């Protein structure tokens, strides 16, 4: 008994050490997932062949090797049941290789396609279904004169979304030569070249008229958040009066335009992407820092990424001289 009581602490200590050393020390650094592939691309009826980027979801951060990946991509026309197997194509980039799967067919308007990707053994799968928007055109309506000069522009078919909608004004102004560096005037004081223009002093004396040159500016105005859909279809309500004021300010930011020449409109171009319903970034912001977060804009089942369906639409036109004069794009003495 005495021996047992003396040995007990040692025995307990030994048991404790064995228990402690057997405690779980491994870590599960990877969360379980049922997502296996990420897909990016656009199915377009304007292209003769379709292409989609395919990234396998891997356990390790690495550059993909220049060899085929274990992925088979097929597309199915959900109306006809026609199935195509897409080809893998290696594209070499500075930061490694990417895999573009492609197939030589032209997508048909108003038709749905399912793109399915799977591993050779079929264990890993992902799929996305996209519906190609119906064929449509841009149809400017009549110019209305109210307090402002307005025009409603219609889309002739019931497409589900109008993305990246811009009304681009091609204007001319007589400006100092330095303004040549800023051909596209974006709304946030930046230019298409990235560099902010030097500030101009509106009170400064105008340079001699003979040193000025006639410069064309492209001034895009974003109408993404202004278009609306009702029973009659899409309407883009253009307000030329507002836009003229905005354009005049943007031009003045990069140069002192000659007021005797004014801001003259050459033509208007409306551009947009007729898109499928899922092609919608949160708050309509297509910022890579936002959209890179997995799951933020995805329509891929069993994976991540986004595959859209759509096509570009554009329409170029001009306004009658009288309308231009009333807006301010033409001076009375022209």
């Amino acid at each position, binding site marked *: 008994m005495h021996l047992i009581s003396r040995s007990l602490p040692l025995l307990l200590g030994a048991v404790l050490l064995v228990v*402690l050393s057997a405690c779980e020390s491994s870590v599960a650094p990877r969360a379980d*997932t049922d*997502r296996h592939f990420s897909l990016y*691309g656009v199915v377009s009826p304007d292209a003769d062949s379709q292409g989609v980027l395919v990234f396998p979801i891997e*356990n390790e951060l690495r550059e993909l090797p220049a060899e085929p990946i274990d992925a088979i991509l097929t597309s199915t026309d959900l109306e006809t049941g026609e199935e195509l197997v897409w080809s893998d194509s290696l594209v070499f980039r500075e*930061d490694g290789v990417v895999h573009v799967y492609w197939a030589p067919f032209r997508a048909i308007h108003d038709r749905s396609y399912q793109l399915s990707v799977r591993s050779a053994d079929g264990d890993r799968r992902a799929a996305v279904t996209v519906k190609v928007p119906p064929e449509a055109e841009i149809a400017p309506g009549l110019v209305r004169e109210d307090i402002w000069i307005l025009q409603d522009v219609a889309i002739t078919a019931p497409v589900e979304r109008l993305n990246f909608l811009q009304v681009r004004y091609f204007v001319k102004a007589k400006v100092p030569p330095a303004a040549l560096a800023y051909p596209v005037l974006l709304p946030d004081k930046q230019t298409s070249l990235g560099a902010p223009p030097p500030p101009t002093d509106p009170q400064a004396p105008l340079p001699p008229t003979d040193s000025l040159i006639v410069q064309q500016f492209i001034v895009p105005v974003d109408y993404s958040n202004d278009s609306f859909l009702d029973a009659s279809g899409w309407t883009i309500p253009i307000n030329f009066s507002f836009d003229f004021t905005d354009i005049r300010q943007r031009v003045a930011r990069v140069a002192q335009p000659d007021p005797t020449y004014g801001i003259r409109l050459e033509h208007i171009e409306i551009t947009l992407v007729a898109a499928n319903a899922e092609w919608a970034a949160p708050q309509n912001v297509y910022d890579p820092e936002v959209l890179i*977060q997995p799951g933020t804009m995805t329509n891929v089942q069993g994976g991540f*990424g986004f595959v859209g369906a759509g096509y570009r639409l554009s329409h170029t036109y001009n306004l009658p001289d009288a309308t231009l004069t009333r807006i301010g794009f033409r001076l009375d003495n022209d």
Partner: protein
Amino acid sequence: MRITPAAALALAMMLLAPQGSAGQSASVRGFVTDASNGEPLEFVNVVLRRDGALVRGAVTDFNGFFVLPNLSSGYGELSATYIGYTTEIDTVLVPTGQAITVNFSLEPDQEQLDEILVESERSTGAARVTAGQQTIRPEDIALIPAPDVSGDLATLLRTLPGVVSSGDRGGQLFIRGGEPSQNQALLDGILLYQPFHILGFYSAFPAEIINRAEIYAGGFKARFGERISSVMDVSTRNGNNRRFEGSLSLSPFVSAAHAEGPIVPGKLTFLASVRQSLVDQVASDIVGQPLPFDFGDAFAKITANLDSNQRLSLTGLTTHDRGTLGADLGSEIQPEEIRWENRGIGARYVVLPRQFPVFFEAGVSYSSLESTLGEPDNPSRSTFIENMHAMIDLQFFLDRVTWNGGASLRLVQLRSDMGGLFQNVEERGDELQHFGLYLEPEYTVSEHLKVRPGIRMQFFDTRFQPYIEPRLRVLYERGRHELSLAGGYYEQSEIGLYDRRDAASVFMAWTNAIAESDRFDAVAEGRVQTAWHGLIGYRTTFPSGIELSAEAYGKYLSNLFISEWTAYPRFTTNLQPATGRSLGFDLRAEIRRPGFYGYVTYGYSNTRYSAEQAELELWYGTETLEFRPPHDRRHQVNALASTTYRKVDLSVRWEFGSGLPFSRVVGFDGFALVDDIINAFEVDTDRRVIYERPFSGVLPAYHRMDVSMGRKFTTTRADFTVQGSVINVYNRANLFYLDVFTLQRADQLPIVPSLGLKVEFR
């Protein structure tokens, strides 16, 4: 907390106005030192008697300094008494309206040697915590099992509840929810930016040079500023002023040497220490795995006793560290090497003006840190920070109040370059100026109650719009019970950036509170980091040698700047504002018996950060993201038992820490922005990390047992100490580092037997 310039001026005038007229009364002050080595003695009772009746008494502080203010003129008998030393008695004449200096040098009393050890321990100890403040002396360090015979402050700090370390590797301490960059580490007033070596047992503070260390886990005094989490104020010894001493020690981990002695006896002393790691050469063979670490430090101090009223000391140190922390699995991605070097030099001047009961201290210092990460010859990340510092401190002694006040000026220069693979960070550089004023009277309200309110005015970047930092410390002692509380407001300008997505990220880049965001007001206005601290503690001592203490705390942090969350696999200084809070409590039980010392401590901590990144609402449907930062260790247990059996000292320590949070990865893929009718063959792509919700994973718990056994052999010329130790007795595979990108895993040290020898010459 910002105030207007007018209010600041009024407050400054009020603080700087004369607070009394006690300068005309007489006083006696001086220093008490150990006659055997000249080191200051703390807690010495100094008493003035006249005709056998007690006139006034005082207790020496950590400088060995005492002052008896408000005396009438005349003769008296001044005595200095300290257990373990012979009492010194001197007859003094106190002249009218003057301050006289009387220094004592007490001879150790061999018969009381054991008692002095006991008494010394009672001024420190595991349960001796008062409102977040704990004093550590070298003898406390010696109790902690370590892989070599020469102790280090780092081994003890890692055992404190509320202190989370990065482990055996890395050299990072998180104190009660704060981050390493929010800790202020001072060595004789010199600010050290990265004071811990790459092997977690070691720091720039070897036990050989330490006189004492004051650790403030929060609620620190107004004397300290510029940091928002904690203070480690380490004071070094002056060196023996009677005779030369030295020591050499050798272990598989470190070789060390130190020397001290009088250059001019009684006037000028020196203390020097040097250490160099042997881990890579020796310990790695014992462990059976590569330990690619190289580190070392050198320290030197010269102290001049200019006269009985003045002392000047010069301190210099340098540290170096180099090593790879990730596991080398032979893949194409080699583990990155981290290097850092601390440099520091400083001078301190202490004077007791002849006319006033004032203790005056002035100091200047310079220190720097250079750190790199990446390939040895081509680092991808680097940071450099240096500062010049000048300070004055004053203590003005009145009858029931001691006025503490001072000023400091620090000029900081920093730059960071974080470019490299998967990174998109620009080079950053900045110059900062910090100017601080503080006033902190300590009132002895009654025999039992001391109250120490304080206020610090902190000017960042020489703007006359100071930040006002109120502080308070209260101590109530009655019998064996002690109740303490502390609180305050703290601000910090410099930011230490590290990648929170790593399970154990060691490289920290220093930068400034920046004003480059049009998305966040706090960033755009360049607001500094702030914290509110509140602590309340209770401690009781039983005659049986048992001491218990409990302390609860809360820290509320604002204007933190943390890396933005992104799925791009990169290190980034795109900052997002965040707030944080840490709540917790410590329980400590300590027992001292003849031949036995032990303690058990438990710490609970709950830390949460709340990030305000603009994209969060789009990603998670919430404006702020609350998460557990990677140093949020919820539960900690530390136990130590130390005894002596047949002249062999035996120590056993066990520690447990619950698992730390980390961000689990679902996988890696690529990303392309679909913002038009893109051509898949031409569109730009990036690699991408697919994370779970940030910091929702938990790493395995950490626990380990260390033992050490040592014996000292004494000869007439030298003492020999032989120590054997085993670190991680049951060979627990504790995780140190997990690279979630490459799945590289590095563990803490496995079982490590070690044998060390130390020779002390005298």
